[in-house]
């Protein structure tokens, strides 16, 4: 029995168990429901808004971008919070005390957060498809594009979440260090309004990060060809999308294990104890 492969198998099972526990928990169901109802209501109240005179209505135009934001947001903030929290509560230390435990733990995290995208995307997609017409112009090929953009986007952004969760000093800091930059990044990434409405240097900055490209990829899948005129350079830039997301994925795959190892090295019973005392202070 190869212990590393064995540990990765255990990590997959761990991620699956955590996923099942999450979808069965009223707290998480509530969160999915809240996000879904909010999004669908936003689309519903704007259902008659035409984008310019393109013949495309707001739900059609906005949905792919919103899904893109959800992918980026979910797999960055989710793992960052989980990792920061599990550093403090001793979950990570438990795995450090196991043979090949960290490999299992990280596999579990990747599995869990990837799976968690499904309910968060489906709870929005399914009611939207029932309520609004003409959401998906691409047909089967479009859905295929959705699949690869989501997977590639996941690979590009999930490492960011893991790194963030490793470097923040504590759970309470995920908000300032993580949430804020991601919110800003999402705001400038053409998710809520077209990129061209922003200053040139902001446009450039947005195009460095994966969030913009996930949104662009999803719009290319959902929107009719005519909508390409709303994009930078009147092109879906599919090749470049693949390239940018793949580059982030590769960088993530190279950097993340190092950061995780460094973070894990510093874990001990006293760090967990200190975190526990700090959190008690905070609650009081």
């Amino acid at each position: 029995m190869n212990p590393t492969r064995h540990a990765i198998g255990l990590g997959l099972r761990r991620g699956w168990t955590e996923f099942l526990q999450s979808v069965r928990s009223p707290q998480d169901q509530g969160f999915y429901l809240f996000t879904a109802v909010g999004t669908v209501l936003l689309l519903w109240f704007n259902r008659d808004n035409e984008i310019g005179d393109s013949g495309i209505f707001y739900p059609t135009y906005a949905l792919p971008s919103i899904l893109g934001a959800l992918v980026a947001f979910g797999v960055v903030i989710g793992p960052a919070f989980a990792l920061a929290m599990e550093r403090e509560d001793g979950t990570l230390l438990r795995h450090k005390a196991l043979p090949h435990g960290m490999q299992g733990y990280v596999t579990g995290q990747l599995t869990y957060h990837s799976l968690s995208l499904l309910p968060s995307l489906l709870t929005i997609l399914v009611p939207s498809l029932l309520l609004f017409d003409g959401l998906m112009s691409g047909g089967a090929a479009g859905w295929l594009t959705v699949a690869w953009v989501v997977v590639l986007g996941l690979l590009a952004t999930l490492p960011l979440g893991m790194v963030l969760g490793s470097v923040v000093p504590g759970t309470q800091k995920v908000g300032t260090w993580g949430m804020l930059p991601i919110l800003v990044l999402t705001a400038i990434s053409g998710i809520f309004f077209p990129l061209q409405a922003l200053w040139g240097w902001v446009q450039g900055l947005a195009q460095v990060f994966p969030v913009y490209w996930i949104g662009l990829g999803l719009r290319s899948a959902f929107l009719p060809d005519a909508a390409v005129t709303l994009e930078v350079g009147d092109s879906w830039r599919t090749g470049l999308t693949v390239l940018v997301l793949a580059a982030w994925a590769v960088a993530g795959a190279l950097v993340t294990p190092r950061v995780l190892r460094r973070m894990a090295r510093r874990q001990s019973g006293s760090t967990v104890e200190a975190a526990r005392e700090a959190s008690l202070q905070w609650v009081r």
Partner: protein
Amino acid sequence: MPRPDSPDDPVVDVRGLRMAYGTNEVLTGVDLTVSAGEVVCLLGPNGAGKTTTIEILEGFRAPSAGTVRVLGKDPMRAGDAWRARVGVVLQSWRDHARWTPRRLLTQLGDYYAPYSTPERPRPYEVGWLLDTVGLTEHADRKIVGLSGGQRRRLDVAVGIIGRPELLFLDEPTAGFDPQARRDFHDLVHRLSDLEGTTILLTTHDLAEAEKLADRILILAGGRIVADGSADELGRQVAGRSEVRWACGAERFVHPTDDVVAFVRRLFEQHGGELTDLEVRRASLEDTYLAMVQRFESGARTRPVLEEVVR
């Protein structure tokens, strides 16, 4: 050079261990050995460096100086096969809230499966372990609903699931009620007697140390100031035994360092008038307080004499 460990090698072997956080020296030269199958208890006042010592032995913290061998390896460099032989009981607080004890033990225990050998099958069977730590009733409830004592028992179960040859426990019974404490002591005895597990624990509870440990180490001011069984330590501290007697209607109490001579004199003086006689050895608590006090006053006034104390 790594070498295969023979049964005679000490399980834990520490020489000149020093640890400093910045300019704050926590350990100033710890020497200690633990042999296979021993139960050793590390006592000491708060801030003496007990937790730091244990964490260095667990491989969770790098020492500033000194040699540390645990199961024949340097814990900071030892690999996963070494990890599989070592059990650590952690004081976690809210992890795995949605898991059940059974699910968690099954998941974590499985990491040890590749290290199972015919002589030492790993991990323990989960049902048996749950029963052993008294969690069968709560095995399928969410961990978030467990009481403090039940959580600690789960911590112990997680620590021993891999059937370790060496087990570290840092204040394992903090927050236990008397019954849980008794059950835990039975479990430690069982691990030690039946499995031959070597156990190193820290505690503040002197009665617990006396009950569990084959050997007690007292850590004060960053070094080991006493090493021996509870009895041996008691004998090292002079003037600790207490003689009580009654002579007619009067009762007397007198501390003495030489019980036999004192009692002989009593008989010579009072002979048949003695109606009651009781000799009380120093309790471990007396011994401990005396030793820590002696060390601390010695250390404060004459730091040069530290070597003599040891």
